[in-house]
Structures are given as C-alpha cells and as structure tokens.
C-alpha cells in the first residue's frame, strides 16, 4: 500500500508521466472495447475518399471512403496485442535465463552467457525481417514470437548481473541455510529484487515491439491484411498519399496514434524509474 | 581507580604546544551559510605551528564544512558568509581560484575520508602524482626529484613504491588508498595537513597503522595536522589541542589535558566522554546522551545544547553563551560553567 501511495505522489508531481499513464490506459480500453463502437469494411463504402475532418468523420476518410477514426480505433487491438505479448515473452525469457544463469554460476553460466551474447550480436531487425518474410503469418502471437527473438538477450544479461551480485547477499545465505528450494530462491528472493528493473524493461519492450511491428507493416514485409496502423500507413503510401496534400490527415492520423502511445510509454516508464530509484526523485 | 574509558588511556598525557609557537592558521568569526542555514556559526580558533589539532563533534555539527573552508572548498551553494580565514596572515576567503590553486596541496593540503574515492579510476596513480607536480612547478622544478620524494613518502606510510606508481586505484585496498592519499597530500611539503575522518571506514588494524603513521609524519616532517573526527578515542590518541563543535557552534577549545582532565568542562563534552563505551568499565557507567541534535532549520533560542542539558537554567534558554577562555586559553561556551567568570577575563 505504501508503494501505491508513493507511486501516486510521484505521478502527481511528474505531470508528463501522469498524462502518459492516462494515455496508455485509454489505449488499452480502446483496444479492448473499440470493436463495439467502430466498424470498418474492406469495400468501398460509398463515401468519399480523403475527406477533411467533419462531425461525421472527425479524422477524415481513407482512400476507400472509410472513416479514419474508426480505422484507428479498430487498429489499436492488433498492435497492442502483439506489443504486449512480445514484451511478455521477452521479459519471461530474459528474466528466467538471467536469473538462472546468474544464480547457478560456473560453467553453465558461462555457456548460457555465450549463447546469449550470440543472440545479442545478431542484428535484430534484419533477422526479424528475414524470418517474417519467410513465415508469412497474420497470427499476432506468431508475430510476437518473431519480434522477441533477439530482444530478450539484453535483458537476460542485465538480470544476470543483478542476480550475480545478489547471489552473495546475506538473505540468500539465510534462505539456503533454511533449505529453501531453488524455485523459492529464484522466485521469491531474487525476483522481487530485480522487479523494478524488469517492470521498466517491460514498458520499453512494448515500445520496441510496437516500433518493430509497425515498421514491418509499413515496409510491407508482414502481410497486409486486416487493419492496423502500420498497414494504414503502408496503404497510404502505396496509394500515393505522399503526393497530395489532401491525404495528409489519413497519413498522419495513424502516425500520431503511434507516436502518442510510444511517448506515453516512455514518459510513464520514467515515473516507474523514479518510484524504484528514489535518488532520481530529487529532480 | 580511574575507570573512565577515554581518560584512562591518557594517564600521563602531555601535549600542547608551547604557547610561543607562531600561529599558522587563524579562523576569525567564520560563518558558512547554505542559503538561510548556517552550518558553521561564528567560529573562531587558532592553530599554532606544529599542533596536532582535533576538530571534534557529532555528524552534522559543521566540522567538515569548516575543514573544507580551510581550503576554500566549501561545496556550492555554501558560502563563507562572515569572517576571515588567515593562513600565515593571508586571508583565504578573498583569494581567487588561481591563488587558491597555488595554496592547495603546496601550503595547505587535504586528505578526504577513506570511504571516498580520492583517485581517478582510469588513470594510474603515478600519472595523477605527476599532475600534481605539473600544477605546482615551483615546488619541484625537477620532476625526477618529485617522484623520488613521493617514493620516500610512500615508504614512510609503509607502502611499496613500485606497486603503487604504475597501478590503478582499484588495485589498492581501502587502507592502502588512504595511505597513498596521505603521501600525496604531503608531496609538496605543505605546512598544514587537514584530514577528514582519517580512521572512519577503516578496520582496526588500519586505524592503528594510520595513527602511527600520522604521529611518525608529524615528528619527521614537522607538519601541522588538523583532523576532523567524531571518535573521542582518536582525539585522545593523536591530538594535542581540541575544538569541539555542536550544531554549528564551537562549544569548547583547549589542550588535550584541559579537555579531558579539567573540572571546568562543557556539559556536552562531559556527556560525550561519559558515553564512550569501555571494554573494562562497568556498563552502568555508559550513559548515552538523551535527545537529538537540533535541525539547523529549527535551532532553539539561546544555547543550542540546552534542551538536552542537565545543568540548563533560565538564562540558557534565552541567550546563546559566548566562548569564554580562562588564563591558559581553555575556552568554554556555557553560562553555568562560566558563571563567575567576568567578560573581562574572557579572551578568545
């Protein structure tokens, strides 16, 4: 409870972080409930293309005459799912590998770290692009796995470093003396200590995943189907949106949606950072 | 049987410099302010050449701040608001950066707490020593001689010159680093050496070593030593003159004998001495001091120690007692103890 009160106070002081948190909440709600309020079809709806903003169409229309705002709303869910699932995978793998390796030490630790280093060195984006182009998938979970393939390595390294330093702490010795099982040691002793770092890494992993997946869609590397922001931008560019100024709204709306979410995530993670790292609060 | 722990060590303490030794450092009504707070409040004291002078007190009493001001190094936003600090007659508080740079290390030198890292971690110790020689070309026009003298000093502090010169600070233990810092501080043959908590953060063996080394250096090099500490036992071991501070004010000054043996003593100092635990004495003799040091933002009117003082009277709540000294220079700031002393006999 102390924790939450602290957190609330930090949020109140750090306005951008508070706004960020609210924005994230809004996006999550839209992702979950958006489908009830907005509809999008692939066929021309008889409306006019590239209309400017109006009461009927607050963000104008796309090249097929569909309402842009609806498209953005609908597009939120797939993006968020992939983002969150990918971050979960990254965190899970990274933390488990890191804690295990750091705690166990010795030869096994060395081996795991070498492997981690390899994953760390292989350039993530090109690999993702290559894999995504070979496995043509529209399944968001598969996509999330692909996105996570190298991102976990950095986290694993950092967590391992923390585990290494914690390994020799007194409370670990105390736990060992009580013969607590390994799962308890890792799960209930070490984990809470790396918790803060992991929480922040989670948010940033979401940021990274959104960046990567939207990038893939915009490039056309991931298959174009369904509606999401990246696809909107892709279609916009392919339909020549860059060459007329009438389409500015259609082009910029999804971009704004992306940027807003990314910025919100980054600012909010800063509040988390301050929460766990009191020294930063003096700011 | 004298079972008071501290004084038992010094059954035959001699000490004190002859009154005739010249004044080398004079603190004249100095106050150091951080915004509206006075960390050091109108303090005056006199250090004579050859003294081993202890500046004692609890954490936060202002002793470190005062020590830093002796080198013109009060950390911002602190400023020396009143008074002068005179080294051999020259006023430090009005010097500019260049003059201070010449003064530091060559005339007045400082050794930081052992817990602090005095050495740049990515350059060798030797390089850092050369930086010092380079910054003060007048001291050692011939660098070679400078290096040789440093090696001599290293041996005085019981370290092997070869290991130290080409190594990085990470290679040295805490105690070793502290000794290298002392050697470096003495390189340019300063007249005054200031040490901030020289033995805190060191283990017992290293503490003993540092104390022996300091005594040794004092004898061999004749340097005046000023050290800051909260450890009364260290004061008893090392110092010949003492100044005790409380909440930014000076409460007592005198020779080591006067502080520990005189009946005339500030209540705070008495309480401090009683509070030092002894291996041999009966535990009932240990009395911690009740209450807490006042925050600088909420200082009591009148004597700052009054709220915790057993001897406090009405006047103590009203007026901050001035430091009054007797004929031999033993000064105490307490109305009750000084009762009967007229301001005519008062000498700073």
């Amino acid at each position, binding site marked *: 409870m102390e924790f939450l009160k602290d957190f609330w106070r930090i949020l109140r002081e750090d306005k951008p972080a508070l706004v960020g948190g609210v924005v994230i909440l809004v996006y999550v709600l839209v992702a979950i409930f958006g489908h009830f309020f907005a509809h999008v079809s692939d066929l021309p709806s008889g409306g006019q293309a590239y209309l400017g903003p109006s009461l009927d169409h607050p963000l104008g229309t796309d090249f097929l005459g569909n309402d842009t705002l609806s498209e953005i709303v609908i597009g939120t869910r797939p993006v968020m799912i992939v983002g969150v699932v990918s971050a979960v995978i990254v965190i899970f793998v990274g933390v488990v590998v890191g804690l295990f390796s750091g705690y166990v030490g010795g030869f096994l630790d060395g081996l795991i770290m070498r492997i981690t280093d390899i994953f760390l060195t292989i350039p993530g984006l090109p690999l993702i692009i290559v894999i995504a182009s070979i496995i043509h998938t529209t399944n968001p979970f598969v996509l999330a796995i692909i996105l996570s393939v190298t991102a976990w390595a950095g986290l694993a390294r950092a967590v391992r470093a923390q585990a290494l330093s914690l390994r020799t702490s007194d409370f670990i010795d105390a736990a060992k003396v009580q013969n607590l099982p390994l799962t308890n040691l890792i799960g209930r002793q070490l984990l809470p200590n790396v918790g803060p770092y992991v929480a922040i890494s989670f948010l940033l992993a979401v940021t990274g995943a959104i960046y990567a997946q939207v990038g893939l869609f915009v490039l056309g590397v991931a298959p174009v189907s369904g509606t999401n922001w990246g696809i909107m931008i892709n279609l916009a560019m392919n339909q020549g949106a860059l060459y007329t100024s009438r389409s500015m709204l259609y082009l910029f709306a999804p971009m704004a949606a992306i940027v807003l979410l990314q910025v919100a995530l980054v600012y909010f993670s800063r509040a988390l950072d301050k929460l766990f790292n009191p020294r930063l609060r003096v700011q | 049987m004298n079972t008071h722990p501290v004084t038992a060590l010094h059954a035959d303490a001699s000490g004190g410099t002859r009154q005739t030794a010249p004044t080398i450092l004079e603190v004249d009504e100095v106050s150091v302010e951080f915004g509206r707070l006075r960390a050091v409040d109108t303090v005056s004291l006199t250090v004579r050449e050859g003294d081993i002078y202890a500046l004692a007190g609890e954490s936060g009493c202002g002793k470190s701040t005062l020590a830093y001001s002796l080198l013109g190094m009060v950390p911002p936003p602190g400023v020396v608001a009143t008074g002068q600090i005179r080294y051999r007659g020259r006023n430090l508080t009005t010097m500019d950066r260049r003059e201070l740079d010449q003064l*530091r290390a060559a005339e007045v030198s400082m050794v930081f707490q052992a817990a602090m890292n005095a050495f740049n971690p990515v350059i060798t110790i030797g390089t850092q020593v050369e930086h010092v020689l380079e910054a003060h070309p007048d001291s050692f026009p011939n660098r070679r001689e400078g290096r040789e003298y440093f090696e001599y000093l290293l041996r005085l502090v019981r370290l092997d010159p070869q290991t130290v010169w080409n190594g990085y600070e990470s290679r040295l233990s805490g105690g070793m680093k502290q000794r290298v810092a002392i050697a470096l501080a003495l390189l340019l043959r300063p007249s005054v050496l200031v040490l901030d908590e020289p033995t805190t953060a060191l283990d017992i063996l290293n503490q003993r070593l540092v104390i022996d080394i300091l005594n040794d250096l004092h004898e061999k090099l004749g340097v005046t030593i000023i050290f800051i500490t909260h450890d009364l036992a260290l004061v008893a071991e090392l110092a010949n003159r003492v100044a005790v501070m409380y909440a930014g004010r000076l409460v007592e000054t005198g020779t080591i004998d006067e502080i520990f043996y005189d009946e005339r003593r500030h209540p705070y100092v008495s309480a401090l001495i009683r509070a030092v635990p002894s291996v041999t004495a009966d535990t009932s003799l240990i009395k911690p001091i009740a209450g807490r040091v006042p925050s600088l933002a909420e200082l009591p009117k009148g004597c700052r120690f009054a709220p915790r003082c057993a001897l406090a009277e009405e006047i103590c709540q009203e007026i901050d007692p001035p430091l009054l000294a007797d004929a031999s220079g033993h000064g105490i700031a307490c109305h009750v103890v000084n009762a009967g002393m007229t301001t005519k006999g008062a000498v700073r």
Partner: protein
Amino acid sequence: MLGYLARRVLMALVTIYVVVTISFYMVRLMPGNPMQYLEAQLQQQGGVSPDQIRQQVEAIYGVMPSGPLWKQYLTYVGNVFRGDFGDSMLNPGQGVLSIIASALPWTVILVGISLIISFVIGLVIGTILAAYPDSTFSKVMTGVVSFLSAVPNYLIAIVLIYLLADLNHLFPITGAYSNNTEPGFNLPFIGSVLYHAALPMAAYVIVSFGAWSLAMKGSVTTVLGADYVRAAEARGLGGRRVTQTYIGRNAMLPMITNLAVSVGYMFGGSVFIETYFSYPGLGFRLISAVNSRDYSLMMGCFILITIAVVVSNFVVDLIYPVVDPRILKPASRKSRLTAPPPQAELPGAEAMNA
C-alpha cells in the same frame, strides 16, 4: 591481454558460424521452402530438363537441391567461407556478394556520418544539460529530446519526405547520387552524393541525437559529483586539467563504449530509412530482396550484415582496453553492457536501435 583477444576472436567466429547455419536452415526448413518453390516454378515454366533445373537452383543457392541434408550444409558453409553466396535470383549471373559489396559503402557513408554527427551533437548538448541543469535551455531541450527519442525513425523519415521532398521539392528522395554526374572523387559527384544523403541523414540524426544527449548528460552528471574530482581540485590542479582529464575523460568513457556498440548496430539500423529514400545501401537491398522473394540475395544480405556487426564489435573490443584500462583486470571485469544505460541498453529499445 592475449587471452582476452583470443576469446573475442572465437566468439566472433562462432557467431558468424551460427548465423550461417541459421540461414541455411531457414531457407530449407521453414514453411514455404523457397528452394522447392523455385524448383516448382522452373518446372512449371517447362522446357527445362530436371538436370537444368537442378543446375539453376544450385547456381542460385550455391547448393545442390538434392542430396543428403548434411552434405548440402557442408557445401553451403564451405561456399560461404569462400565468399560464394550464390547468385541473385532476379539477376542471375550476378553474384550476391558483388551486389552487396557495391551496396556496403553507401550504408557506411550514410550511417557512419549520421552517427558521428548525432554523437557530436549529443556530446555538446549533453554537456550543457549537465553543466546548467536549471537553465531554460535545459528544460526545453530535455523535453524536446525526450519526445524525439520516443518517435520511431521511419515516421520522421516519412514526415521529412512529405514536407521537404514531395510538397516542396527541396531535396531529392531517390538514389545516392544524380544520374548526370560521374562517379569518382570529383566535386560535382561528392556534392551530389551529399545532397542526396542529406535527408536520410537528417532523419537519422533527428531521431538519434536525443539519446546521445541524455546519455552524455547522465555521464557528465555522475562524474561531476564524483569524489575524485573534488580531490583533484583539493590538490590545486587547475580548472583546465580537472575538466579535461578528470571530468572529460571519465565522462567520455561510457560514451565511447556506446558509440562502439552503435557502430555494430548501424549496419542493421538503416533498413527503414534507406528503403524510403531508395538509397542503395545494404538495408535497401535487403528489403528489395524480401519484396521480390529473392531469397539468396536476402540471405546473403543478412549474413553479411551480421558479419559487419561482428567485425565492428571485434574492432571495438580491440580498441577499448586502450581507452579504459580497467577492462583487462579480471577482478573488475566490466561487461560493456553494464555501462550506464543510454536508451540502447534496454531490451525494447535494442530493437529500436537495431
């Protein structure tokens, strides 16, 4: 020192080997096996004998399509280490390696110069932010920079294209140089190269300088508060000496680590920007290979990008002990990645910089 080097060399070789293996298996084992696809295509075209089909596939992929897997594998690995990546599917007869070799310098120019520019800008701004944390400049700049570093680079690229190239025709958006200049070390050519590279570089710099600034600010702030800086002042070392050797050098160290790490990432990082600007670098080649299903070119690009990353990292590992002597001491062995984190260190952001 020698042990350190040997370990690094070994890791580099192992990494490359792993990547080659991954490429091999990806082409063959993933759903929609491209080789079989190609075979089927050629068969459908008709008029080509099975032998010829096999020859073509072999020429393109560098490996016989039939035969036991392990044999194919060995041949492939052998080929790669000899520099033979097969031929590009869409440009048969043109070796993948030669295509990539001509693309590599463009990427190096683009990302290399952008990296240096953003690094330098970041250093300057970061130092100012650390030295004057309460000034208006600091507050505004910190806000701007925090915002910019959260924006994906391709979006900025699109905005730049839209505003500056399409609507206002201020800058070109395709190619590395004008068609009517002669390649070579002459002024018109170099001028043209720079002109064409300006927008992509701008996109890159706008997004990156923020992270560098914040990293530098953090580093300088840490050092400014360090004990050894005060100790140096207490020894009467002049302002210049303290600033250069005690503050500057120590603050720069983690920055150089990061610069070094970024050099490795730069080869993979240009993908988006090169594609939008049709700038013929490695990233561009990779994407066009992807879009045209030119698998051998794609694999070749990927392997070569990785090799570039590995080699850069290795060179950095060679240089770093010179800069920070602590790295060689076994007791205080610091992993590069535990240096004070700029955005690049955190896992999600790793993908961002990649």
